[in-house]
């Protein structure tokens, strides 16, 4: 059995690939950069505008299993995030509208690094499968070390009225035991 990487996309599937340098690729890349900027600048309400109302946003668990069983290394039955649009809006509202969201008050200083972006067309003409690597650095209070969290994101971006929106996101972490005290931030 081949070891699954967390994607259903095939590198050979060049027919459906949206290649680096094309207008669409550039647009998607810039959108992801903008998203990272909004998150790092705590502009969560603006980030919310990037989310489609039928969004599914999940972060499955990881298990450290043997190579022959790699298909079990991403656990979909349990998640670190198990969100949809309205529950994410609830999270944003808690962080921005209440005076007691202590996990982010004072807020974490984060930097979302996005790279290795690959884009595919899907069966729907206005939806694109986008894979990107993510690296989050996070620092709180006067900690003298950075928390570093790496992951891959499998997104579906949907183009509506010339704007791209996030319709689906799966965040697959590289740590089986997450080295952070919580996920009060978004990825």
């Amino acid at each position, binding site marked *: 059995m081949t070891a699954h990487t967390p994607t259903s996309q095939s590198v050979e599937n060049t027919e459906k690939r949206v290649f680096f340098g094309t207008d669409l690729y550039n647009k998607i890349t810039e959108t992801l950069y903008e998203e990272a900027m909004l998150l790092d600048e705590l502009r969560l309400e603006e980030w919310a505008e990037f989310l489609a109302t039928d969004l599914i946003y999940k972060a499955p668990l990881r298990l450290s299993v043997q190579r022959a069983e790699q298909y079990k290394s991403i656990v979909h*039955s349990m998640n670190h995030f198990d969100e949809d649009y309205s529950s994410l809006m609830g999270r944003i509202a808690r962080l921005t509208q209440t005076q007691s969201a202590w996990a982010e008050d004072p807020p974490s200083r984060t930097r979302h690094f996005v790279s290795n972006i690959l884009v595919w067309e899907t069966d729907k003409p206005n939806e694109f499968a986008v894979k990107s690597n993510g690296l989050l650095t996070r620092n709180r209070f006067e900690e003298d070390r950075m928390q570093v969290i790496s992951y891959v994101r499998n997104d579906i971006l949907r183009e509506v009225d010339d704007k791209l929106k996030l319709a689906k996101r799966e965040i697959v972490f590289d740590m*089986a035991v997450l080295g952070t*005290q*919580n996920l*009060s931030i978004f990825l």
Partner: protein
Amino acid sequence: MLESTPKSQKPQTKALPDGTTIDDLIDLDMREVQLRVMADKDIYDLEMEKIFSKTWILLGHESEIPNEADFMIRDMGTDQVIVTRGKGDEVNVLLNVCPHRGMRVCTAEAGNKRTHKCIYHGWAFKTNGDFIGSPVAKEEMHGNLRPKSELGLKKAKVELYGGLIFANFDTDGQTFEDYLGDMKWYYDMLFCRTDRGLEALGPPQRFIIDANWKTASEQAAADGYHTITLHQWLGDFAGFNEGDIEASMMGVEVTSKTGHAMRCQPVANKFKMLAAGFADGSLSIEEKLELLPPPGVTKEMLSQLKTHLDDDQLALLVDQPPQVGGMFPNILVAFIYAPQPDGTILGLTSLHTYTPRGPDKLEFTNWIFAEKDAPEELKNKIRKVTTGLLGTSGMIEQDDSDTWPHMTRNAKGPMGREFTLKYQAINSLPRPKDWAGPAEAYDGFTKDDTQWNWWLRWYELMTAE
């Protein structure tokens, strides 16, 4: 209040390397504990020996390893163990240390193996830990100084309770019955109330907090008080307890010498629209169950409750079920009502363990449960809503996990470490009238007694011979 042996009658206990004794760290009369315990390496080492090697430790649920030869890796204090399924109901807990040269026998976190073969020199073991043999049989590489029966993996005592897997390496220590003690009556209402019992909806979330294991664990011993401030948004914003979190501080807290604790909160306080019928005796138990089933139970399971619980348990379960609390030393129990945006009330069922990973580090392990017989749709809902509130990204617990590192850090300063944690809010009300359950029962506003009892158990074990 539980009685504690006056200090003068206690033999002076083993001193830490700097001469401090456990008695110096805890003031039994004043109900104070030195903050130093939240970061000190010597105290931590003693805890690993006196607590985590002596008491029962929760490792997971049997539904995580449903098939013969399934296994998973878990931690008992700082010792790593392999939890294996044998035939039928047999569950084994084995130290993940190869008797040959100390290599980890299992390097994967979970899987299915009939034979566990150490990848270093190839010694092989059965799912129950028995030694099978070593490669190159004719050379007898395992020697002949010890019989094969002495070359197996070290086994812990195992107890299944409502499918929960507990283990203990102290083979002639406390029995599991004594461990649960008089608190069993309450836990039965959560873990042993239906025909098929609970199932873990998947493997647990696992993440690391830079905090001492006790910062989280003493809170689990029913610190209701912090909810008002740390989780203020629950009332203000999420509409918990109909916006009145302070009212949810009322109830009965049960606890005992075991160090376990649960908060039993009256439904009538939580949901005002139900208050009349629940408090004035005009509704029967059946009618109450119909109106608001206890967290995690569906209406279809109500008849099962009657076969598993006695009348007193059933009455308590409908009127003021045990909802949050813990089990000594490091377990949090949460069976809570979560009001949903559509006006319905969903029951969440979750357990955590706070596994020590060093004096200033703990692993937060979060299992989400549902009754096995719950419909798939309900399970998915429970999983989603619980993930939203508890554990890694949980909106309630993200505030807790950001608090504990500060306490741990403060426990390191030369001034801070001498400061004390105070448990001086003492319940002075009489035991509630007609309280049918066993153990200590503290009425009224949540106070510090349950947590203090947790510390008394800590003290008892830390000073045991």
